[in-house]
């Protein structure tokens, strides 16, 4: 708590935090990302990761995927506040545990090491659809796709083998099956 003579109410006890993935369809116009991100920072919501790109060039629609944590009340607010933004068309919100939704994140890993160690690394990556994008005799750049926590784990694991650089996209999401989010 802040100083006892500061203003306003004492924070009441926090509820349980859930991780949610928001998918937001927006007009791809200047400033739209600032509006979305500004909403999060201005209202004190947390952003764990963020991925954004245009997905429909004729209609100028971008799709923003935001991973966030919050109490159920905060998650509800995030959704409702996002929907109020003028360039926002629709907002989907998924729990991370949701089995009906696929979450994926891509990472590029650069390993600088002797051949043997590089091979060991590639073997570790096998589960995560590795694609070798670049190779020299002392280095390799490998692309993997996985869940966030899997990539976290991999980064940790590969450090001792010569992982020197990691670049990640942040999670993106899509529902399973033939249905699309309306």
């Amino acid at each position, binding site marked *: 708590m802040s*100083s*006892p*003579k500061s203003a306003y*109410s*004492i924070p009441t006890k926090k509820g349980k935090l859930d991780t949610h993935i928001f998918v937001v369809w927006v007009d791809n116009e200047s400033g739209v990302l600032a509006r979305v991100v*500004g909403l999060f920072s201005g209202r004190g919501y947390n952003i764990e990761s963020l991925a954004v790109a245009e997905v429909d060039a004729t209609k100028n629609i971008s799709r923003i995927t935001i991973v966030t944590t919050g109490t159920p*009340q905060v998650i509800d*607010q995030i959704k409702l506040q996002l929907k*109020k933004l*003028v360039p926002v068309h629709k907002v989907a919100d998924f729990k991370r545990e949701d089995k009906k939704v696929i979450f994926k994140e891509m990472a590029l890993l650069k390993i600088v090491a002797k051949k043997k160690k590089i091979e060991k690394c590639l073997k570790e990556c096998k589960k995560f659809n590795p694609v070798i994008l670049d190779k020299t005799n002392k280095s390799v750049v490998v692309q993997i796709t996985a869940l966030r926590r899997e990539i976290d784990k991999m980064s940790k694991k590969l450090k001792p083998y010569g992982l020197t650089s990691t670049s990640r996209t942040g999670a993106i999401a899509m529902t399973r099956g033939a249905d699309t989010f309306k």
Partner: protein
Amino acid sequence: MSKLYTGAEIVFKCLEDQEVEYIFGYPGGAVLPIYDELKNHSSIKHILVRHEQGAGHAAEGYARSSGKPGVVLVTSGPGATNVVTALTDAYMDSIPLVCISGQVPTHLIGTDAFQECDTTGITRPCTKHNWLVKDIKELPKVMHEAFKVATTGRPGPVLIDIPKDIQFAKTNYTKFKKEKKLNGKIHNKFSENEINQLIDLISKAKKPVVYTGGGVINSGPQASETLKEFVRLIGFPITSTLQGLGAFPGDDNQFIGMLGMHGTYEANNAMHDCDLLINIGARFDDRITGKIDEFSPKSKKVHIDIDPSSINKIIKVDLAIVGDVNEVIKSAIKKINKKQNGLKDSNKQRISKWWEQIQKWRTKDSLGFINSDKEIKPQHAVKRLYELTKNQDTFITTEVGQHQMWAAQHYKFNKPNRWMTSGGLGTMGYGLPAAVGVQIAHPDKLVIDIAGEASVLMTIQEMSTAVQYNLPIKIFILNNQYMGMVRQWQELLHEKNYSESYSEALPDFVKLAEAYGCKGIKADNPDELDDKIKEMLDYKGPVIFDCHVDPNENCFPMIPSGKPHNQMILGPNDKEENKITGKGKSLV
């Protein structure tokens, strides 16, 4: 090929099509093409303010008192930054404003050009939406969209930033037809089932209370009529937030006064003890709820609001009805009349005990104060002002502080759109320019700013505006020589350490009035108060009334916000005065 118009011409064409009559503004380099065009549009009158914040508040006063959006025109850089306070104020209190700002030419954006600032960046968090127009072809669409966003759903301010080269560039313009029913991002799709649930709750409650807010005012004058009908039909007690005053007649027996931090004893106790709470167009603001964990612990809660994000934001409710207030209560009335004709009588019986309890609370007379025949008590001054003006259709604005609360407590409003005060942001300096805007909208009505001597100095320069346009606004200053509200907190919470809250070196307000070319009146004796107020009311032009009041008076009742509603501090008349201790200190 159709005729081409410059960006500046387009701005006015759009304003004309939106039936705008007044712009509140201040010129500068980046809006000169627009100012140049002004002379060609006789239906639009420009009101030259003395500071851009004043333009914003004047437009707010205009909007609140007329129901139409207020339009503001400012230059780039400092013009835009000066209006930020007013935009934020309008955002917090849901007031429709359309602000047009000039910007440096597009090719200079981002170069730190003279009077450049990132206006859309700065105003993004304090507007519903804003636009930087970089292509002249976009301008007509953006202008009309701006009006739509500002005025639909939950209203609020918007800003259009127009670079100077765009004001010169040319394009064609097709006449715009206002849609009858704008829908934009508004939500008005409540279901019959929800109305049924509401009526079910109404017909079971034993201790109900209706709690209304600014949303009723924003829903239009019709909503206040509907509210009256609804509340009389169900027979419930009704309380209001600061912003909602006037939606229900303040002198009606069913009205139990304002609630919240400086609300009445009966209103706050009713909120605490009720078993059904119907929130209509209010937002469970922290000045209202007090301690959240102990807020109205025994009640079923209903929330009727047009903004879905207001629902469950602070207080979880049992029934949410998202829609326009007027529409929702209208359909509730219809349903009751059709299906539950007996409701009025059965309600009366069921809640008669509750009304008895409320009467008991009323006898506490929580707005009471000890009057004096030596000094003018500020509450007494407001009461006299009310008595002497209640027979006219009077519009009241205020600044922020104790005087604002006394005005809310002791001036009774019987109609909506007559009470303009800065609630959400609490902006000192709001009242005087707001009065300018109100008087513009209602040239023949009586407009009074109930002011504090500290607040009024923040925008006093707008007296020049009042004089220039012959606006007979009355600035009624409750001069206690203190930032009274600050002094009160320091007395109650900071061991009477009156750090920097004394208003040293105040101007002579009578001379100040004369310097601006208006009338100054001073009163410091209760005996002369009535005559002097009458003198003010009889004077045809603007007046600054310097009412010297008891500097030590505190504003009661008061809930220190760490406390629940049923633990208020009452005034000096009350023996068992609660003292603020420990944790409560952090909460005011």
